[in-house]
């Protein structure tokens, strides 16, 4: 086992632990912080796997932007009080959910273990990537060439997200006035 593998296992177990905390903890704020931890672990794993750009994005976008949003909302809604929703759930439903999820997980693992990945391989061997200027450069180039199209439509997605989120979340003003001015 290489050092990288050791680190992988370390971060993987941390990630699993924190994600369990995220899911199981009563207090949303605690969950949010655990989630940040999960994101960090993921970033580390990305790095271990050689996906440096993704790793960076993970930290910037997820841990930086999305989590801030979460915590902001948690604070805004004053919803950080421990929620006792946990106990109210039907125990049978909960157990069944867990069992079924576990079952699915098991079968997925079985599949992963007993299956072959694509027999044809791509051209981006690590050496190749290195020779083309590294992970970041390759990705960036691809983004603006081969993946230009999804990149462009992502812009529409973001636009829609902004318009939608604003329209929904902005303070309801007197709907009587038809001449509303959006804040976006």
């Amino acid at each position, binding site marked *: 086992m290489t050092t990288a593998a050791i680190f992988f296992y370390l971060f993987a177990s941390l990630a699993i632990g924190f994600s369990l905390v995220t899911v199981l903890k009563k207090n949303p704020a605690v969950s949010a912080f655990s989630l940040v931890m999960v994101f960090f672990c993921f970033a580390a794993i990305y790095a271990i796997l050689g996906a440096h750009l993704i790793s960076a994005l993970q930290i910037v976008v997820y841990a930086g932007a999305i989590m801030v949003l979460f915590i902001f909302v948690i604070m805004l809604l004053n919803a950080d009080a421990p929620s006792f929703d946990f106990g109210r759930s039907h125990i049978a439903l909960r157990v069944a959910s867990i069992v079924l999820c576990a079952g699915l997980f098991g079968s997925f693992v079985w599949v992963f273990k007993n299956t072959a*990945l*694509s027999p*044809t391989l791509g*051209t981006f061997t690590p050496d190749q990537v290195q020779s083309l200027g590294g992970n970041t450069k*390759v990705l960036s180039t691809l983004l603006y060439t081969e993946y230009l199209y999804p990149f462009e439509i992502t812009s529409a997605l973001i636009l829609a997200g902004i318009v939608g989120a604003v329209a929904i979340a902005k303070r309801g003003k007197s709907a009587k006035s038809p001449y509303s001015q*959006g804040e*976006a």
Partner: protein
Amino acid sequence: MSLINPAYLAMSSVQLGLLTPYLVLFFGACLALVLVVTPSARPDISVPGVMVASMAAALVGSACQVGAPAQALFNGMLLSDGFSAFANILFLGSGIAVTLMSFRYLKTQDLVFNEYYVLIGLSILGMMLMASTLNLVVIFIALELMSFSVYCLVGFRRADRRSNEAAIKYYILGSAASAILLYGAAMLYGSSLTLDIGQIADRAAQSGALFSPLLVIGLLCVLIGFLFKTAAVPFHAWMPDVYDGAPIPITAFMTTGLKAAVFLALVRVMASVSSAPLLTGSVATSFHHILWMAALLTMLVGNLVALQQTNLKRMLAYSSIAHTGYLLVGLMAGSATIDGYTAVYFYVMVYAIMNLGAFGVLTLLALKGDAGLELGDLAGLAQRRPWLSFALAVFMFSMAGLPPTAGFTAKYFLFYSAVQSGDVLLVVLAVLCSAIGAYYYLRVIVQMYMKEPVGQAAGTTRFSYSAALTLGVTVALVFQLGLFPSAAMKTISDFMKGPQPTTALVK
């Protein structure tokens, strides 16, 4: 080896032309957004005006593409073919109709926030993109573009807890389903090195040995994602609640545009999957069984529960589930028949038209606060609003599948193709389900025509020309397609040069 493949960047003027509908719509939306945020005169008229204009322009653009040779743009991520032209026309048409019928509705409901129209436009853009690609990443992005817009539109009655509830439910479940779909995409990627379903199929056709459990699970996850969006049982539960809580025009939009988009995308995917020997042996059988059961359950649950409803919107929601079931029957049959999925396309189109019409009437009937849509509110409507009742009756008969309406011919083609695929038992069950369906559709008519009016009920809204136009066109189309479907059928099959399956999904 160079990273930059010039082919990715070069784009002929023809190809640019093919992009016109998308671009027009996108920039129309942007323009409308500008109008929303800048203090301009009467944005409540100009914004929808711009949106309708751009949608109409896009529609014309799409229509111009009919007959043009199929093209793959952006490394195959955007397929411009008859299929996408057909889909675009359908989405844009329903978008225009929804916009028109929303106009009066938003006024009566005190909901004049003009972002509404922009969101509809963007959502349609998402639909168009989704139906014209086989790339899973693009599908995902387009799907989310469409979904995010619709989440917001569903929750647009912000002060109404029902609307909030619907939006949240839809968001939670929808996102989970998207995640599953995406997970499936990841697994497909792992088993075939590509995110393009068309390429997966091509590779399978070349090597013939792409089969792996990973691929199967990936396909299943993708399928589940789609089944969720089309509200097939057991992934249907969100739909009634969301339809119920959403503003009526948005419900109309969802039953028509959104449903059509998801289904057409699913058809494209399934057609592609089944055109190659991807699924063989026991897996193919399992897939067949799964779809079979899903179709049956969907029809059953949809019809049975619709029978219980007294709220019109909810009833139509369940009926929409039932129609998903019929469509699944057609989907299964499509791969085995010569005419392929033409029957499904036709059904999708007809279904969109009927629903637009039916919801158009409901929009006009809705009182303030979306109240007044219980069945009983329709009592004696025929005497107060004869034309409106007539229109609704036509749509109900059409949905029940009675001649001489389009619903009948559509259903006929669908089942016809299913019989050809040899699945007579399923068709028999399907027609029995549609007999159940007739009952609740007829109840609406009973209320309108055979009951005496009780007190102050629905149908007091003023008439709006835009809505009248929508209704008139849809009624005419329902009859036109019911009586003379062959022209439309022929057009559709002329459109479809793309995903023409050659081999059966099963066997």
